[in-house]
């Protein structure tokens, strides 16, 4: 029940809840999203959108941290070498 997609805030349209809304970009398209739950989102921020409303601002630093953690996995792994047999 929780399909939610990150999109970039392009323009605020209305600031007052419950009708607060902004134009948000997903890939090559934009659409209007209810922003009542993310009042502090700034232009350029990514928000997570579910059922027509933004439910959070996506944290850039946290995203980078996760990807870095995984890169670290890689370096750990590079010390070893039993790879090929695990690919499908």
């Amino acid at each position, binding site marked *: 029940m*929780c399909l939610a997609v990150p999109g970039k805030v392009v323009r605020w349209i209305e600031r007052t809840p419950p009708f607060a809304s902004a134009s948000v970009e*997903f890939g090559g398209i934009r659409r209007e999203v209810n922003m009542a739950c993310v009042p502090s989102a700034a232009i350029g921020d*990514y928000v997570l959108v579910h059922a027509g409303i933004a439910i959070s601002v996506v944290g*850039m630093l946290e995203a980078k941290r996760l*990807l870095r953690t995984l890169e670290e996995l890689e370096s750990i792994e590079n010390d070893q070498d039993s790879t090929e047999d*695990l690919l499908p």
Partner: protein
Amino acid sequence: MKYVDEFRDAEACQKAIRSIQKDATQCWSIMEVCGGQTHGLLRWGIDQQLEGTVRLLHGPGCPVCVTPSAMIDTAVSLSRRSNCTVTSFGDMLRVPGTQESLLQARARGADVRLVYSPLDAVRLAKENPHREVIFFAVGFETTAPATALAVKQAAHLGLTNFSLLVAHVRVLPAMEMIASETPMLVNGFLAAGHVCTVTGFNSYEDLAASHRVPVVVTGFEPLDLLRGIQQCVTLLECDNPSVVNCYERCVNKAGNPQAIGHMEDVFEVSDREWRGFGLIANGGLALKKEWAQYDAALKYSIGDSLSIITEDCPAGQIMTGRMKPVECPFFGRNCTPEKPMGAPMVSSEGACAAYFRYLPANHIVRTSK
């Protein structure tokens, strides 16, 4: 797409898989709570690739699956009234009640419409002042703020022809119920990332501590899922039943205060029957008294009704992790997405449907055309 593509990187995923395989000393049973996670795992073949390393159990994660058939019957009967329009999300429309689904009712003349957002139902009510528009509100805490905003918008607009048939469910009581099963089947939980986006994860501390079960807040992209599994395995391997957030870019410990605020303005915690589970204490949300005028159950004098479960489908077994879909005797034979016997085969998030769709080609039991 930013924050999507990076988390689908195939090479990084392969590394995470290898890392999990390296870390796991035994085949842990890990339950992903949300149906969206189930689909991600199957769509990307993670399930297959971790076979033998981790046993993935598919949790109660589809609000559609757990909506009691009696509730659907109510929605169907409302939809048959001549001046009523019943709206809901797509998958909800296809779930059979005791007699028929909303879509079937529609094929027989009822006014049933699919909406993308509860806010669309408000717009429909505004544009059709002579019709009673009822939104059949299903969903976990992820969706409840949207429903709450819909009610607030209706109030702002002074609409008197909009109401809710509320079937919102809360995920934590169901997790507690699963964790309380003896013998306990689940070694660790992947908590539903988008539920936590709204609620945060403070509330999982008690669950983790009292049942000594690690809870990892997990996202939906393959790397997120793998990172969650990896973290869960790590916690299990070092016998550390704590709560860890692996979906940090979207989830704060305290959740989204505005979303919680809207939700709590409109809803209060209540007991609710879950299909396959029975009555779960505090397992749902109900409209607060001050919003009673938007309560379709009051507006149309609908009494409480617990379903008598007489179904052959062992959905409860599936949703509590006691049985895998392929272990169900009906799976792929009597029960397919075209002719589902139970809710888990209907919803696109249902575990049985996910298995039917994404099982490795050489495992698939295909029904004859």
